[in-house]
């Protein structure tokens, strides 16, 4: 009966109640949406790399090394010698190591020179290793394996020829057009920068640069593929390499050893630590977004309170009547509170529904523009926490109109 009274009372004031529900829905939608995206961004961010114990590169900031080696953002400060890679990789504690050579691109997507260990050892997320959607790892010098997004966005399929551009700009004019690569494999989507990369062998990178000096092509090259294949294409330098250790216990010891490597200035970072350092930098942005969302919810709660307060004035006789037939002032107080809570619960349900469907429909868009794979599961501990907080805040916001009703009932 109590619930029915509250519902029918709300239904009898459809107009203002509906507007309030809409305002609340929008605000809760914003809060949940921001929370969810923040969560997903963080997750997809920290899932970019796993299983790698150390990343080694030229001396620079740890965030910078992480950015260019893993996220393919920015550019390396310097290269490191192939000999250093070979030396460190042969250490008895190292289980595997993956060399990375950056510097070329294809239509804005970065080209990575590496070896076949990349497909064997590199892992992301919850220790998922890379899987082939089609084809196989590169075999020949001019083979290329595409990340999922590269293949899907540019419409490449196995057997297509790709020309790589020198440098990382999207509109590079210096093309390695004399030596096109052949697509031999396409990777499954990972939700990491791997999707936006083209993978070639280190020898491939060397091969396309054979007759280049200082970043400019020397005209009149006549070397054929056959001649190139016969040459020694061992690289002299690489950009960075990832290391997997036999035992995690030696991580810090090896890191120190690499940092003190005396043949060349090197730096080793722990990906997890660098990732959290990088995420720390996003904290302010994160906090601001959350603050704005919370303020929006607060504003709509005040609107709810104002709506109820205005309704009390028109309902004075109704309250009087409830008193006469035996309702206590506390009953009146709780009735107004229940009305507020009902409005909030309906708004929460609507917001969740709208958010769910907007995530469903914007899924492809987010993936396309931000490489963000967003799950449609909105329920996390933090969102449940926020929702209970909103209900609690509703109870508080409704105290003013409820108290008002309580007083007029006295």
């Amino acid at each position, binding site marked *: *009966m*109590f619930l*029915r*009274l509250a519902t*029918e*009372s709300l*239904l*009898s004031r459809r107009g203002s109640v509906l507007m309030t529900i809409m305002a609340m829905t929008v605000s809760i939608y914003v809060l949940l949406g921001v929370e969810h995206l923040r969560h997903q961004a963080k997750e997809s961010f920290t899932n970019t790399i796993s299983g790698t114990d150390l990343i080694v590169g030229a001396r620079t900031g740890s965030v910078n090394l992480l950015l260019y080696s893993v996220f393919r953002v920015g550019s390396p400060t310097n290269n490191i010698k192939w000999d250093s890679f070979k030396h460190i990789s042969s250490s008895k504690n190292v289980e595997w190591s993956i060399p990375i050579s950056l510097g070329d691109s294809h239509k804005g997507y970065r080209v990575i020179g590496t070896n076949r260990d990349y497909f064997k050892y590199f892992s992301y997320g919850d220790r998922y290793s890379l899987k082939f959607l089609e084809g196989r790892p590169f075999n020949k010098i001019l083979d290329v394996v595409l990340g999922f997004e590269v293949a899907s966005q540019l419409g490449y399929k196995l057997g297509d020829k790709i020309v790589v551009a020198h440098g990382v700009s999207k509109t590079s004019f210096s093309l390695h057009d004399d030596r096109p690569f052949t697509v031999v494999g396409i990777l499954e989507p990972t939700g990491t920068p791997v999707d936006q990369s083209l993978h070639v062998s280190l020898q491939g990178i060397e091969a396309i640069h054979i007759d280049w000096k200082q970043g400019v092509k020397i005209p009149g090259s006549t070397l054929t593929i056959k001649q190139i294949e016969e040459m020694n294409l061992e690289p002299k330098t690489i950009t960075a390499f990832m290391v997997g250790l036999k035992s995690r216990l030696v991580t810090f010891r090896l890191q120190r050893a690499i940092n003190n490597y005396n043949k060349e200035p090197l730096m080793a970072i722990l990906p997890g630590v660098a990732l959290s350092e990088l995420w720390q930098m996003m904290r302010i942005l994160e906090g601001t977004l959350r603050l704005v969302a919370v303020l929006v919810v607060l504003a709509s709660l005040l609107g709810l309170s104002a709506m109820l307060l205005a309704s009390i004035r028109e309902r004075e*006789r*109704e309250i009087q*009547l*409830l*008193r*006469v*037939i*035996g*309702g*206590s*002032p*506390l009953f009146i107080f709780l009735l107004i509170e229940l009305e507020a809570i009902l409005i909030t619960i309906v708004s929460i349900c609507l917001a969740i529904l709208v958010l769910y469907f907007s995530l469903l429909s914007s899924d492809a868009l987010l993936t396309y523009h931000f490489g963000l794979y967003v799950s449609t599961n909105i329920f996390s501990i933090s969102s449940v926490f926020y929702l209970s907080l909103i209900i609690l805040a509703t109870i508080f916001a409704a105290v003013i109109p409820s108290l008002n009703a309580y007083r007029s009932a006295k």
Partner: protein
Amino acid sequence: MISFNLEGVRFSYTDATNDLIVDIGKWSVNPGEKIFLYGPSGCGKSTFLNIISGMLEASEGKVEVLGKRLDQMSPRQRDRFRAHHIGYVFQQFNLIPYLDAVANIQLARYFYKGNDPIVIRQEIEELLFTLNVSSSDWYKPAQKLSIGQQQRIAIARAFINKPEILIADEPTSSLDGDNREKFMSLLTALVAKNHTTLIFVSHDKTLSKSFDRSEAFSEITKVGAE
């Protein structure tokens, strides 16, 4: 058991004695008695009714209803007492406008003991039938009904808990002649059937003939006499 027994009851909103709204030396009503009260508006009528129904607490004095001391009860106890023993009919606005007739009556029952509404639905429908409320109006929101209908439903609402006392505060003032007749005959029939003590307030003295006793407010409260 005597229905009302008031002694030395005073009420004022402030502590000042010259601000008295109600000042009653002694007033009592026997069970089953039908009292007609009249007086001009603004003479403290509603304050008086609020005190004897336990809505307001008297500033001083003894308020005994059905042998229970209202002045010694907590507000919560008075609310429960009212729900159990006193029915109330106003001049207008007797019903929650957005609830239908049946739900309005169920609500009174709910405050009585939080009964399961389904069980008493039949009881309510029978009562509405006796009161000449056509069944097509039972499940319409009260605000869609005519005043005459609303007042009859108000009687049903007042009687659903079989109260010993019925207070009717100008219940016929917003009704036209024909409806007033019908209303009065329904009310007196139900009161007689249930042996209810009736306190009927009106400024229309022509209605007073069917009552046991007729009193002017000015006779009851000294304030009104001055």
